[in-house]
């Protein structure tokens, strides 16, 4: 009775849906796990460790994820790589920490990091059975910048910076730092707590990672910091070197002395490509890293990409994006490290620590 009524009701839509679903299931030969790795993402199971990978004929995607600072380099390298390869590169910028989360899940082949891997992360990767290869790709200088009209502050020691940025800092005005300086309130700008820049600056300047005064304007967008400094005569900010290079008309970069003590400080050095590369500009210069999953290195296109990343051809890109290229011997060392990781006998266990 009820069924009869249903058909009389003329619910053709319903009948159609049922029919389509039946047809779909008839055509469905089931769902099976793919055995040969198609190399579409980080799922490559691979064969024997370390054998020379065969040329991958299917166009695949290389997954790079991590630091928004390293992103700028990887993006340029990816653009240029795609011009010479049929493989595609996907680059994410969810931050050093966010990139690690995908790396540990094997969802990205390469992790971009603006700081070296820490012990906790090493332990977790080992626990998950993930082996990695650490490569330095460029050097980033952190600059301390003020407004161009600020004529009193031309150099600072790390000691003075520490006084300004510790959590218990009492520095509010310029004359709290140096009594000769004006009695005006400093407007502090800095990186937000998620970024590798924040970790690096606090570690070097404050002396303890992730500890900082909190009454400052934090921004993950470095252009916001540039704007902040450019619009406030009493601003002081730490900004990646690359951003300052691009905006040298609107902000003034300060010379930094590595000394902690106020008496007889070591000479202050201005961050330039030369001083960063020569190691004179210390301690606010840091290496930038990529971490490659060793399993992913069994895919030929990833080997090509990594090789291209540290090749001579991509060094001009590093400079174009406002960073400093590695010293040549360092780059050659990186190439050697990659070659060693690719050697069949190696078994693929190139721990970052042991490689150093």
């Amino acid at each position, binding site marked *: 009775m009820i069924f009869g009524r249903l058909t009389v009701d003329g619910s053709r839509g319903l009948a159609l849906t049922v029919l389509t679903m039946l047809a779909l299931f008839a*055509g469905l030969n089931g769902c099976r796990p793919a055995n040969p790795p198609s190399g579409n993402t980080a799922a490559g199971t691979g064969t024997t460790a370390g054998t020379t990978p065969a040329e991958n004929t299917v166009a695949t*995607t290389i*997954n790079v994820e991590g630091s928004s600072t390293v*992103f700028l380099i990887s993006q340029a390298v990816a653009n240029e790589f795609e011009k010479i390869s049929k493989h595609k590169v*996907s680059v*994410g910028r969810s931050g050093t920490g*966010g990139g690690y989360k995908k790396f540990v899940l094997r969802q990205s082949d390469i992790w971009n990091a603006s700081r070296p891997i820490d012990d906790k992360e090493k332990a977790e990767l080992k626990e998950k059975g993930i082996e990695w290869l650490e490569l330095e790709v460029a050097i980033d200088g952190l600059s301390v910048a003020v407004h161009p009209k600020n004529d009193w502050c031309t150099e600072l020691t790390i000691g003075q910076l520490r006084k300004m940025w510790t959590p218990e800092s009492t520095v509010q005005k310029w004359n709290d730092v140096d009594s000769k300086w004006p009695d005006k309130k400093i407007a502090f700008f800095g990186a937000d707590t998620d970024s590798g820049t924040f970790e690096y600056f606090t570690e070097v300047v404050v002396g303890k990672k992730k500890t900082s005064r909190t009454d400052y304007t934090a921004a993950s967008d470095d252009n916001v910091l540039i704007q902040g400094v450019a619009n406030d005569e009493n601003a002081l900010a730490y900004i990646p070197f690359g951003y300052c290079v691009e905006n040298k008309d609107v902000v003034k970069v300060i010379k930094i002395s590595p000394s902690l003590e106020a008496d007889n400080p070591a000479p202050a050095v201005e961050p330039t490509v030369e001083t960063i590369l020569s190691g004179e500009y210390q301690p606010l210069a840091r290496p930038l890293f990529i971490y490659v999953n060793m399993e992913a290195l069994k895919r030929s296109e990833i080997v090509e990409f990594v090789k291209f990343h540290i090749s001579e051809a991509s060094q001009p890109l590093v400079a174009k994006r406002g960073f400093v290229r590695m010293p040549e011997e360092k780059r050659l060392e990186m190439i050697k490290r990659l070659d060693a990781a690719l050697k069949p006998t190696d078994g693929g266990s190139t721990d970052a620590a042991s490689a150093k």
Partner: protein
Amino acid sequence: MSLHGPDYERRLVWRHFLGLMFEWACRLTTFLSLGILAVLLFSIGRQAIGWLDWGFLVRSNSYEPREAGIMAGLMGSLWLILLTAIMSVPLGVGAAVYLEEYAKPTRMTKFIQLNISNLAGVPSIVYGILGFTVFVRMFGLRDRPEEFILDLWFTEIRFFLPLGRIVLSGACTLTLLSLPVVIISAQEALRSVPASLRHASLALGATKWQTVRHQVLPAALPGILTGVILSLSRAIGETAPLAVLGAAAQLSFAPGRIESVGDAIQNPSKMLQAPFDQFTAIPLQIYGWINDPKPVFEHVAAAGIVVLLVVLMLLNGAAIFIRQRFQKKIRW
């Protein structure tokens, strides 16, 4: 003796004056928001001039401002919005129909109702974290992503479990994000259908399903569509949840690697593969450009914003068109 009290004339003038003031205040608020929008459009448009051209639409992102384009973001956003609409409309309308037409007002339904209202106010980044856990890593049940092949008679679809950073993960997350608004607005629309319509239908012997299907839903459709448009418009502009999911910022292909309309027609299997491919979206690209150290990228970002606005307007326009068509048929 006058009917009115003393001062009547003076107070009347005052009352009229108040009325006029109110009218002007309302007018001002309307024009204020329009004015702000105009200023915004003008400044964005001016920055985008010379940067927004056909090449910008067909190129992918690049580190060179003059070579940067929005193709991958545009295609990613369109796929996202398509899948989100496909998922959120039936789910949202279904839930609303159940809550309005079938559910009895028990404490349980009140509790559900309260939660839906609360969910509508949750910051979008929270949905991003939720989506990352549920869809991208699937609670970490598997240590490594494993590839599966879904065999259809004419093609096969390759996908991974856990799903990873694919269009489908993004669309599911945006569905969760837009569902509360869809449900609430659909409920409002259903509630505004006069009870007499239901009573008449039931009195004529129609079943509950027939009443809902043939009377209530058509009458409520314009209102439901408005809610769907609003929530989808919000979803297409979302950046935070997609960034948390790990959507790419630099990508040079459309989902499924579809290269053109012709390519999609010749290889229909690519259309089925697209939801399982990686993606980027317009707001993510704009965010990246604003963030770039090169100040020139501001112009690229402006061009991207114009594209986003145009896509939004086209979507809204289409929805309004559909709404009007349905609205004409209803008479009571």
